């Protein structure tokens, strides 16, 4: 069967077709080198500085959503049927500045100006979604944007003032919504899309069933959802990854189901898409979720990818393990489900058979007496990789601890539970003594590494202190603060 062998999208106002692009062509290189749209900048090529931020509009269940992404690690081939909006598309006719741009000028938000287009795009997305944000919402929106000149103060002030310059109601992306939706609908492929040469092949399956088929015939394919990690394999390590199977367009993998027992999240659901459901079902993850990478990465990265990737320092595995989450793997032969903690076998080795792909993650809801917490320790509060991450789930019945799941990232070659510390808790009366014993037991559970994020000594100490913090936070005898205020 002949597959579509070109990638079609809207670039700013223009319908654009790229014939047979290679899988690893990044959106940023395409924009800067092939289209000579040089407003988006390369600052790091790893999704950490935000100078390349652009908007991507995509149809989800027929509705058009715009999100910021890092063009430097986003592969062009994954944007079939999308609307790519760059900084060049913001100014009005006659060069009139967009409200975000005018606010940035008036509040002196640019100095060297190299990060500025990226900030403008992040603030544009924020204003469309939240026209009158709080300072904290602004900070969250620009977690993925670095500025080395201004110290951010004028940028935040500009962001808080944007709405005084104009309302998103009058913005051209709002006004053209119906038209863009229609144009994107017409661009959706009829079937599988395959492009690029053999050694740099991109495959966009048409459905989950098609995905299973593709993987059956290409068991060594690299599955790419958000490209927030695989993007770096290309831009940083120049690693060959062909064939690449993109799945971020598959709506079937984007289901979020909340019932009385569990929250089930499809493998293609991004951090941002799951945010609301996570906050509802697991309020203790609310703050933690905002500290996963920056906004652009949360718009791209998926929980499924975070699990499938198996990194010992991934943000979600410790909290998923603590909650007793399960992962469902699928292939053409059928599905199997296993606890997330069993999925991680060793460093870089997961229980994924040839042809398997992660279909969904199921997270059971708390039962009576269960207390949950999630902690992330990193050098910088936001947009940093954890030195230690922890998910705790402790159940007490009538003052006795009946169950305990203490899971840690950054402490071993895989995300792992602290068996000795858990044992020190179970069966004990809830209180300082039990938690102190658990904290002390932790050194039998882990022998962490020293690296650039933290020393082994700090990791062990801070991990033990997180157990102490957990107790203090849930100690009803005192109301002294045990954590720093968020805002």
């Amino acid at each position, binding site marked *: 069967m002949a597959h579509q062998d070109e990638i079609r999208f809207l670039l700013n106002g223009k319908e654009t077709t790229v014939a047979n692009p290679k899988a690893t062509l990044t959106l940023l290189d395409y924009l800067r080198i092939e289209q*000579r749209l*040089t407003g*988006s*900048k390369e*600052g*790091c*090529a*790893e999704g950490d*500085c935000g100078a390349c931020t652009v908007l991507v509009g995509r149809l989800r269940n027929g509705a058009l959503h715009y999100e910021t992404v890092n063009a430097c690690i986003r592969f062009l081939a994954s944007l079939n049927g999308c609307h790519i909006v760059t*900084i060049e598309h*913001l*100014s009005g006719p006659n*060069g009139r500045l967009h409200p975000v*741009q*005018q606010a*940035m*000028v008036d509040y*002196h938000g*640019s100095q*060297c*100006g*190299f*990060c*500025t*287009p990226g900030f403008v795009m992040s603030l544009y997305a924020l204003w469309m979604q939240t026209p009158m944000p709080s300072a904290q919402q602004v*900070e969250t929106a*620009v*977690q993925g944007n*670095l*500025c*080395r000149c*201004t*110290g*951010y*103060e004028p940028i*935040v002030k500009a962001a808080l003032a944007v709405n005084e310059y104009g309302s998103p109601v009058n913005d051209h992306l709002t006004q053209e919504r119906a038209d863009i939706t229609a144009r994107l609908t017409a661009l959706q492929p009829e079937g599988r899309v395959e492009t690029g040469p053999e050694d740099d092949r991109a495959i966009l399956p048409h459905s989950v069933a098609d995905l299973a088929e593709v993987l059956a015939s290409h068991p060594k394919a690299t599955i790419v959802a958000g490209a927030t990690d695989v993007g770096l394999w290309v*831009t*940083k390590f*120049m690693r060959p990854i062909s064939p690449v199977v993109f799945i971020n367009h598959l709506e079937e993998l984007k289901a979020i189901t909340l019932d009385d027992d569990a929250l089930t999240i499809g493998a293609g659901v991004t951090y941002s898409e799951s945010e609301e459901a996570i906050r509802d079902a697991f309020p203790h993850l609310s703050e933690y979720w905002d500290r996963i990478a920056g906004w652009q990465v949360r718009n791209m990265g998926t929980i499924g990818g975070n699990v499938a990737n198996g990194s010992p320092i991934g943000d979600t595995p410790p909290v998923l393990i603590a909650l007793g989450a399960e992962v469902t793997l699928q292939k053409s032969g059928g599905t199997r489900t296993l606890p997330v903690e069993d999925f991680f076998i060793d460093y870089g080795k997961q229980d994924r058979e040839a042809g398997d792909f992660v279909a969904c993650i199921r997270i059971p809801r708390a039962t009576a007496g269960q207390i949950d917490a999630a902690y992330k320790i*990193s*050098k*910088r*509060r*936001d947009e*940093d990789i954890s*030195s230690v991450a922890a998910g705790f789930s402790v159940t007490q019945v009538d003052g006795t601890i009946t169950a305990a799941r203490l899971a840690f990232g950054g402490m071993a070659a895989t995300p792992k539970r602290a068996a000795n510390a858990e044992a020190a808790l179970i069966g004990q009366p809830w209180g300082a003594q039990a938690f102190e014993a658990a904290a002390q037991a932790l050194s039998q559970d882990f022998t962490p590494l020293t690296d*650039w994020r*933290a020393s082994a000594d*700090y990791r062990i*100490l*801070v991990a033990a*202190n*997180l157990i*102490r*913090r957990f107790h203090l936070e849930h100690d009803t005898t005192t109301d*002294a*603060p*045990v*954590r*720093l205020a968020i805002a």
Partner: protein
Amino acid sequence: MKDNTTVQGAVHQDLKHDSAIKQVQGRAEYTDDIAEPAGTLHAYLGASNVAHAKIRGMDLSRVRSAPGVVDVLTADDIPGVNDVSPTGKHDEPVFPTEKVEFHGQPLFAVIAETRDAARRAAELAEMDYDILPHALDPVSAHEAGMPLVTDPLKLERGDVDGAFGGVAHRIQAQMTVGGQDHMYLEGHIAFAIPGEDDDVIVHCSTQHPSEAQHMVAHVLGVPSNAVVVNVRRMGGGFGGKESQMNLFCAVAALGAKKLGRAVKIRPDRDQDMTATGKRHDFVIDYDLGFDDEGRIQAVEGQFAARCGWTSDLSGPVTDRALFHADNAYYYPNVRLTSRPQKTNTVSNTAFRGFGGPQGVIAAERMIEEIAYALGKDPLEVRKANFYGEAGDGRTLTPYHQEVEDNVIGRIVEELEDSADYQARRKAILDENAKGGIIRRGIALTPVKFGISFTATWYNQAGALIHVYNDGSIHLNHGGTEMGQGLNTKVAQVVAEAFQVDFDRIKITKTTTEKVPNTSATAASSGSDLNGMAALDAAEQIKERLVTFAAESRGVSEDAVSFAPNRVVIGDESVAFDAFIKEAYMARVHLSAAGFYKTPKIHWDRAAGKGRPFYYYAYGASCSEVAIDTLTGEYRVERTDILHDVGKSLNPILDKGQVEGAFIQGMGWLTTEELWWDDKGALRTHAPSTYKIPLASDRPRIFNTNLADWSENREMTIKRSKAVGEPPFMLGISVFEALSMAVASVADYRECPRLDAPATPERVLMAVERLKASQ
């Protein structure tokens, strides 16, 4: 100044950055945005993966045969001199021939049809090394007997040894201060276009176009007049592009001349961070004597710096550390020595403050030592040690320059009041006394910073102004624009001089073709030097215009004046445009080259005496933090700043410099950590691993004010003061506040001796250390 009110954009006005509108639209052009001529090639550096080795062989055959590769450049391809050392020490080969001296050292350059092809090919070299032992930090390098990269400096005054004999209290200790990557958002880049004969044009992102020009000429073996270096703007510099661009310019130019095609070189962020220098880390040993009141009686300090494999700018950087080891304090007896230590790391370089911050933080550590030893508020100790007023015998610096313009007392007093320091400190002490997990700290720290290049000959500048016969003005000067708003400020000076609106002045790229032999845009000197040079050029043209006006109307020259957008000649008032046209028709020369050199300064390095600085800039900041004693995490709750920029050329731009510098200084001392593994590889080499502050790290409350009463007592441009570097050191208040919060766990009886950067890990480990010693 009342007569300016109708000129839009004259001096002392809040004027937006001249490129702001282009920047927010993504239309401001950076080097990588310049349209490439057909046939442009791309270069990439092949780098070492060992820290120290003798090169036995370098097999580049796989590199040469890789897809897309056009050529490979090694030391053999250099027609001139294989050296890009900025201070003429001849110790920095473009490509080494004998030895590798740090992990990540450029060894050769691949030139290919695309950047991607060049980058992939650069990985394919097969190196044959005899591995040699390496030393990464100044202490182990010293122990291993490695040499200094340049001559050390000694500053001495008074009878140090005698004074230590009579001190009431004496403390000897050590402080380690980490380095810092510049993390300019735009990395290094050079783009060379070959011309006829020996000519080559290099577009690049350097703070020092003249040096880049001279280096390219030196490497190509051609006179400087064959080389043009152009810089429209940089995406940040911070000192990182003062000398470090030389290599990239040289490689691009070599390739362009060898192959007759345009060649661009742009390292990726990782190579930018591993192959180019950073702020020097220091290990500081101090010996301190003081009396019961907390007054310093004697200081001895040794400042050892990780300089890396070459001297680069390490001499003047380590000198400046000593020049600032007094900060704002009078040391009656003092001996300071530098140890610019060679190490097997990338050669460290200029970074905002240029060694000064490392000196200042040592002074502040000594203040803390005194405060904790005597149970005093560190602010009280600071005040007791400030430089005095003329005649009180407390104005002489360790380098024998009189402090004549001291305003630190007033600055600190005003800030103490506006920040409500005393009441907040008391509230914090009370809160901490409850013994909670969360502890708070507050600190008010001063800064005094010397302005001028300590290399006296650098304190010169040129400018070129053309007035075209339609009345439009073309301005060029030797300074470079890296975001600081230099072009805006200099244009304001010219607008003021001619009494014309700012929009009439065209700001143009910096180019070695228009103003020769310029100094780096560095040492905070950009507006001081180039503003004066531009003013000189404007005054020359004005003088000719005045003469012409007086002669043409038969009035005296006193009867000619420049009013907003007009020229007044006797009773007549002529529009500026019309008057210029008239002057042109009368054959008046409407172009002038201006020049400026800073007066009064002199410096005898061998004697350690002189007046290296024209004047001082002052400031103070007060920060409050909260720390979590279980994890070491912290938050900056509030910062108040009062900073002295003299009579500001542009208050809003200066405020932007102050805020930005504070955050950058805070980053240096908190989350920005450089970490090498035992093979000598820098492992924090991109923003994923090297963490500069984010918007959410800035203080929850952040009040920044300029000391609007201040005016430079020296004859600087419009009585303003330099602003680039001094406020960087305001970040120290955050570090000192963290220290106080840590000290609370031992009831402030012990100086926490926090090393920098104070990562959450260092904070927690200090908390544990202090708890354990109780």
